[in-house]
């Protein structure tokens, strides 16, 4: 079954084309890295996937639901971690999560149970009552990932989730999300411009200037080259 399907997606800001006929599909439970330099169109793609922008050309399907035709069912199936933090820094970790749970119609014991499970998964349980402002960057990101899991999504979208984090926190978060896709069957779309966050058995889509330049299993695509070189080759050729 397909977790996420994007077909012939194009988008422009006035005369500037941000996405040009992008299409790919990710199997359920797969980890797909969306690799692209800054300005490749990753954030525009995320805005379309989360329906902050309406799709003008092309089609998006999330866990079998067409985003344009059935936006509420599709949105209910995605968890999102935006590039910019969306935590309310003055609220505790728990309150941030319970606010989000309520936006998905969850409250009371059921919400508390899910919050506990999500925080446990990200090793954040003991920080539930700390203020978000008092957490370091890595823990804030983990809180946001935990939050994105509360409503039991089928697809997890992360837009450069490791920006601004140190190497250890970056590694830890990358590992956590790989685990989530492997052990829980979550379909993950992980946007990044850092090639060291992609594993050999990950699915890889390379985006540049709004176009898809490569799509396949990372190890097959790069063959003998290190991924960073392959990435530079592919993107450099069209720069």
């Amino acid at each position, binding site marked *: 079954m397909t977790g996420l399907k994007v077909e012939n997606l194009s988008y422009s800001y006035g005369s500037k084309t941000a996405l040009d006929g992008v299409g790919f599909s990710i199997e359920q439970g797969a980890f797909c890295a969306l690799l692209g330099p800054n300005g490749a169109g990753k*954030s525009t793609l995320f805005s379309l996937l989360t329906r902050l922008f*309406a799709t003008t050309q092309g089609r998006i399907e999330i866990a079998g639901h067409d985003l344009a035709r059935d936006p509420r069912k599709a949105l209910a199936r995605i968890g999102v971690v935006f590039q*910019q933090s*969306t935590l309310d820094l003055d609220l505790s970790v728990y309150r941030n999560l319970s606010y989000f749970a309520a936006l998905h*119609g969850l409250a009371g014991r059921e919400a508390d149970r899910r919050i506990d499970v999500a925080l446990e998964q990200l090793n954040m349980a003991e920080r539930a009552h700390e203020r978000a402002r008092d957490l370091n960057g890595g823990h804030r990101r983990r809180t946001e990932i935990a939050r994105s899991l509360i409503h039991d999504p089928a697809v997890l979208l992360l837009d450069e989730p490791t920006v601004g984090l140190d190497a250890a926190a970056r590694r830890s978060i990358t590992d956590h999300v790989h685990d989530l896709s492997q052990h829980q069957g979550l379909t993950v779309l992980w946007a990044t411009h850092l090639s060291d966050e992609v594993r050999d058995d990950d699915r890889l889509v390379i985006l540049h200037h709004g176009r898809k330049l490569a799509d396949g299993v990372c190890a097959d695509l790069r063959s003998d080259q290190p991924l960073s070189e392959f990435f530079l080759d592919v993107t450099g050729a069209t720069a």
Partner: protein
Amino acid sequence: MNAPLIALRAIVLREALRFVRQRGRFIAALVRPLVWLIVFAAGFRAALGLSITPPYQTYITYEIYIVPGLCGMIILFNGMQSSLSLVYDREMGSMRLLLTSPLPRWWLLLCRLIASTSISILQVLSFLAIAALYGIRFPAMGYVAVLPALFIAGIMLGALGLALSSMIKQLENFAGVMNFVIFPMFFLSSALYPLWKMAESSEILHDICAANPFTHAVEMIRFALYLQLNLPALGWTCLSGLVLLALALWGYDPARGMLRRKN
């Protein structure tokens, strides 16, 4: 409890928590109308003669006249400030979080309006309590009857702020809109002077004041405080509220939307 109500409760609670944390905002919201009431009204009392017009059945002091207008002022400022926080929210990203909820977008935005209106009502009631201590009192049941009027006025003015916030791209621009929207709306209304008084000096200004939805919100509040229903004011406020709400929803429509800009 069903999903929309759970979301409403959470959004109102979040707005309330934010408000409690910002004590400065609460005090400013109270000081502003109190300065008008205690300083401005004292100076104007001698200059302005008021005749007996409904809902008043006897001569009243100027302080009594402007209290409903100041209630409107609190709601107007709070509606705009809440929109300011929406622009801020949007830049901080939590508006994104709100808009990616699977609940209908119109409901999510309405929840925000209900939340900010609830805060406005608390501020107005605090102001009325202080005014009562100062000696300006209304019929006891008037304090209950005014609640729905405050609610409708709050939704209408909040929708105005929401519509504006959807069209403003940067935080800095908002200060300009505050000056170009709040002050004209407040001064070109019946909040500080009755419309017939305005007509004596300029018919055109009178007509503008009479068309200003804020005038009607103030009159609806004024009549409600005396346990009377001013149907034209109620109708005009509801109508403008619906138009502004439609405009706000249009502004936040993803197909057109305010979010459609390069990040």
